[in-house]
């Protein structure tokens, strides 16, 4: 499980999903956990520097530059869900 970046990203993704009225389960994960459990995720949110670690996952990968930017998260999540 993650403790830092992934926790912040999870919190802000949940805020955005709430605003959009989308029900979803969001889990925080470090790279080791993401490699094991990632294949079951519909969407994986990460930071650009970690995308290469998560290639070959079946779900969509979204790279978030700015973990506190709810507008960026909303735009990228909306695009991935459409």
């Amino acid at each position, binding site marked *: 499980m993650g403790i830092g970046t992934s926790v912040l990203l999870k919190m802000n993704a949940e805020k955005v999903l709430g605003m959009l009225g989308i029900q979803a389960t969001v889990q925080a994960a*470090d790279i080791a956990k993401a490699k094991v459990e990632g294949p079951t995720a519909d969407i994986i949110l990460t930071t650009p520097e970690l995308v290469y670690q998560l290639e070959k996952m079946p779900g969509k990968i979204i790279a978030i530059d700015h973990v506190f930017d709810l507008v960026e998260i909303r735009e990228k999540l909306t695009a991935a869900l459409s």
Partner: protein
Amino acid sequence: MADLLNQALAEGSILVRAQASNWEHALELAGSALEQSNRATNEYTKAMVAAFEELGPYMVIAPGIALAHARPSEAVLSTGLSLVTLSEPVPFGNTANDPVSLVIGLSAVDHDSHIELMAALSEFLMDVMKVNMLLQAENVEQVRTLLR
């Protein structure tokens, strides 16, 4: 709201307008502040640097802001934060968010006891104006007042 951030920042955990020559030095400052405030041992500082070397500059989570941490381990003595403002911004090799002026060190004993703290930290760091004032702060008291 309880003053979670100031509680998490024990005495000795805040460095104001520090000078760092590079990313590694900046992480060591955040780690030494965790050591000074009895949150973690030097092994934890080394683990943070190693995590950065292994996974790259993903720790730079927003423009100018790095969140430095490693996995919970025996090197963590208690859950808490350190906070370092840099007098000169330092490049961390992050395309979107370089250079870094604020390094937050995080030590966590496990995976869930610090979640409320992270919510408080997130709320603070979202406020660009407050973060800018934090970077201008000249002493620890000014930092603590902003975090309150």
